[in-house]
């Protein structure tokens, strides 16, 4: 028996291609939702009012303290436990029937998960805003909201880029568990190819390489983003500024 048969891969390329597309969709949409939902939530997280900040803290604590796989299973399989949910499914309720769809459930769980991490990353970045900048904003007569919008959030978003890049890569890799709820993402495609051909090396090494390449692309994109938005923090080039 051959240990590595390339024809297994070439014969299943369309399946891998669809899997890649699914992985990119799940990761992309979850990150998009997580990022934009995290901005207001991070502001609430830092609110001096305990009644506002505690629920957000509890949310991030739960989602960062439990495995994403369990969160996914909780959403997808757990939903059917509730009688009102099943009743809504039978009635064809437009919102609740979504919880029958593995695709929606995966987006829901992944989105809430990455949002929780992003809230903490962004809140941490906002906490590190230099105090003088806030004082200057106040001296200019900005309200709290204006200062947030013009000073705190933009600069915090810039400074969180290096940490956030880790979260994006972890989300890409974390999405591999989507096959646990019958979705055929990259890993799901590999599992199908494996069980059809009994060819574990071809299937898993191939998708492993694809994930690796996707990771490299993301790292490269974030390098570009840092050059664009964090240029002022880059170490000076040798010789620069010597003349003064």
């Amino acid at each position, binding site marked *: *028996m051959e*240990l590595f048969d390339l024809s297994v891969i070439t014969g299943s390329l369309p399946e891998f291609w669809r899997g890649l597309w699914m992985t990119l969709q799940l990761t992309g949409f979850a990150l998009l939702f997580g990022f934009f939902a995290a901005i207001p939530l991070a502001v609430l997280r830092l609110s001096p009012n305990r009644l506002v900040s505690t629920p957000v803290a509890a949310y991030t*604590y*739960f989602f960062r*303290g*439990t*495995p*994403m*796989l*369990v*969160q996914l*299973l*909780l959403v997808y*399989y*757990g*939903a*059917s*436990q*509730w009688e009102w949910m099943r009743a809504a499914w039978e009635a064809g309720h437009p919102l609740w029937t979504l919880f029958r769809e593995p695709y929606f459930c995966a987006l829901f769980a992944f989105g809430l998960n990455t949002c929780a991490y992003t809230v903490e990353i962004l809140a941490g970045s906002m906490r590190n805003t230099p105090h003088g900048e806030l004082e200057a904003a106040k001296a200019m007569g900005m309200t709290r909201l204006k200062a947030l919008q013009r000073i705190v959030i933009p600069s915090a978003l810039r400074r969180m880029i290096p940490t956030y890049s880790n979260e994006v890569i972890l989300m*890409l*890799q*974390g*999405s*591999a*568990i989507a096959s*646990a709820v019958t979705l055929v993402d990259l*890993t799901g495609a*590999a*599992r199908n190819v*494996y069980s059809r051909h*009994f060819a*574990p*090396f071809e299937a*898993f*090494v191939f*998708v*492993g390489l694809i*994930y*690796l390449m996707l*990771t*490299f692309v993301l790292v490269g994109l974030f390098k570009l983003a840092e050059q664009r938005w964090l240029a002022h923090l880059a170490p000076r080039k040798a010789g620069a500024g010597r003349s003064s």
Partner: protein
Amino acid sequence: MDALIEYSPSLLAGAWVTLKVALMSVLLALVTGLIGAACKLSGFLPLRLWTMLYTTVMRGVPDLVMMLLVFYGGQVLLNVVIDHFHWDFIEIDPFVAGVLTIGLIFGAYFTETFRGAFLAVSAGQLEAGRAYGMSGWQVFRRILFPQMLRFALPGIGNNWLVLLKSTAIVSMIGLSDMTRVADQAGRSTHQPFTFYLAVCVLYLLMTALSSYGLGVLMRRYSAGVRETQV
């Protein structure tokens, strides 16, 4: 609630499996990380390149893909060996496959943690040790290692918390950890939500206990270090 009480012994048995996987993996990861850091800091270029390849691949491929490769691929390799020596059929144990995968993946993360920590110990400390007439091993054991550990502890703590959560994927290769027990119990009682939520609570309990333990260790290893007060 009754169902939860009824199944609590098997759920706790599953929690014990989860804990065993996590502890064995972290042990393997710590050893691998120390060796990896030594390789990355060595003057021998091929060794450095190999370690770089190892850390890049391990951190760039999802843990689940790696685990399926080790579990299913390992079985195929094992079959080849068995055929060759005409042994009886041996099945790959999901526990071994899980620990091996998680341990080696987090070994890559620990390599980076330890490498940074070794570099953070000031060279003057080591020179002072040599000046006192200590041997290389004595300098390592008395000066470099304990101080390195203080720098590495926050990183070790973070990696441990991530590792603990990533053990949940062993349920996907058939190991009866608490996630799989909850899956089975949820199906037979038609209360999946209750059981998965119970697993969440157990994970939160484990992470809370670990955070407490890490705080204690941190204080112990930071004895005599003054922190900057802002």
